[in-house]
């Protein structure tokens, strides 16, 4: 009940901010179109190779950024302190954010998938709705990590700097640039403990052989990381602060 109150409030705030809403929904569609255009004159199905990875990147990056900045705002404006002096569970707060951003990710990826599959001719062998599931879990992961790192940032400027630290290495090692099994051994091991790798694997599996059991396995791993991130986030929320 209180979780839904938090989620509803976050969604109202975003609905009010037209520019952010437009960026959240339209930008992924434009970027995926740009990617398709880049490969338009090349032979082979390069778009089929990179497109799914990009579908996994958007929800993760965007939700990470949006969440780390908005929770930091809650910390510095005093609203978080007020909420924690009220009968609100820490999990209500965290899950409220996860539900709200998960819902936005659902719409965001529905649009991006519709553009990729409908207009740009991305070949999906598995069920298309499963792409949406991967995107939502991926967004919850971004939200969880964003909530966690916001505890370590004193300003919004610092919060944004966490992106190169937390997000960029995951993008480099997720298998999009170099297939994970072709990476040097050490990097391959590191890639195996980074959650984004599994989200990208799941998307590529859906476009490739489309073994649903493999996809659900990957989804489970990403969800596990997301829940661990939320637990860490809960640990950084203190009712009593200095």
């Amino acid at each position, binding site marked *: 009940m209180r979780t839904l109150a938090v989620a509803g409030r976050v969604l109202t705030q975003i609905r009010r901010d037209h520019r952010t809403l437009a960026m959240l929904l339209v930008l992924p569609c434009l970027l995926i179109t740009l990617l398709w255009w880049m490969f338009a004159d090349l032979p082979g199905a390069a778009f089929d190779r990179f497109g799914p990875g990009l579908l996994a990147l958007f929800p993760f990056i965007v939700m990470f950024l949006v969440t780390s900045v908005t929770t930091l705002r809650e910390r510095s404006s*005093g609203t978080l*302190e007020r909420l924690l*002096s*009220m009968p609100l569970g820490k999990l209500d707060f965290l899950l409220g954010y996860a539900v709200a951003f998960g819902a936005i990710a659902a719409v965001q990826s529905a649009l991006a998938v519709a553009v990729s599959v409908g207009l740009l001719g991305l070949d999906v062998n598995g069920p298309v709705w499963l792409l949406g599931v991967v995107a939502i879990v991926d967004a919850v992961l971004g939200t969880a990590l964003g909530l966690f790192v916001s505890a370590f940032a004193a300003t919004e400027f610092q919060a944004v700097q966490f992106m190169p630290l937390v997000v960029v290495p995951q993008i480099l090692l997720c298998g999009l640039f170099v297939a994970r099994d072709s990476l040097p051994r050490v990097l391959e091991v590191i890639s195996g403990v980074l959650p984004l790798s599994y989200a990208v694997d799941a998307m590529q599996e859906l476009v490739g052989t489309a073994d649903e059991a493999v996809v659900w396995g990957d989804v489970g791993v990403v969800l596990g990381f997301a829940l661990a991130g939320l637990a860490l986030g809960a640990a950084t929320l203190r*009712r009593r602060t200095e």
Partner: protein
Amino acid sequence: MMNNIVITDLRVVRGGREVLPGISLEVGAGVTGLLGPSGCGKSTLMRAVVGVQQVRSGSVEVLGRPAGSKPLRDRVGYVTQAASVYDDLSVAENLRFFARVLGVAAIDEAIDRAVAAVDLDSHRDQVVGSLRGGQRSRASLAVALLGDPDVLVLDEPTVGLDPVLRRDLWALFHRLADAGRVVLVSSHVMDEAERCDRLLLMREGRIIANGTPSEIRGDARDIEDAFLRIVEGEAVS
């Protein structure tokens, strides 16, 4: 008179500096003013009463329970110095959200009452970010009134407000206190002292006077004068 807030040997250290070196005091029903210069530890003391301040030692009890404990979370209304409301939501949307968090039963009635109490009826559907400073802090105050709390902890709620509005808010604090509530209000403006039932004068983390305004004033010209006499008397002794 039952003492609703009981503080015993409270010590708070922030960033290696002792902000409260061990203070004890009791606050009962009525409007109690916590007065002292900026940076004397008023906000820290209030945060300790609400239960959001890390304390080194000592105890704070509110309504017979440890400050910040679960049963108190919907019985203590708290207004921080900064207006703790969402700038991108309207006054009514803010109130609706906090009412849901508090678990208020009749939400619409509670919102109407809170908006009327702080005189924001004509701005209830306006986004908080577009309100003027005084209106924003009243929106924040309205949130604290929502759950009809038994204890109100208000950190400088009247700073920078128009005199007419300030008078109205003090009248509101007294109406709330007359119904048996504890209202603890801080201010760094000494001329608000006369509006309180009881006063706590604070300086450098310590309570230097505790009593009714007339007791503390004694034969001094006003509370500010009394404050100076106490401080200078301490320096001599």
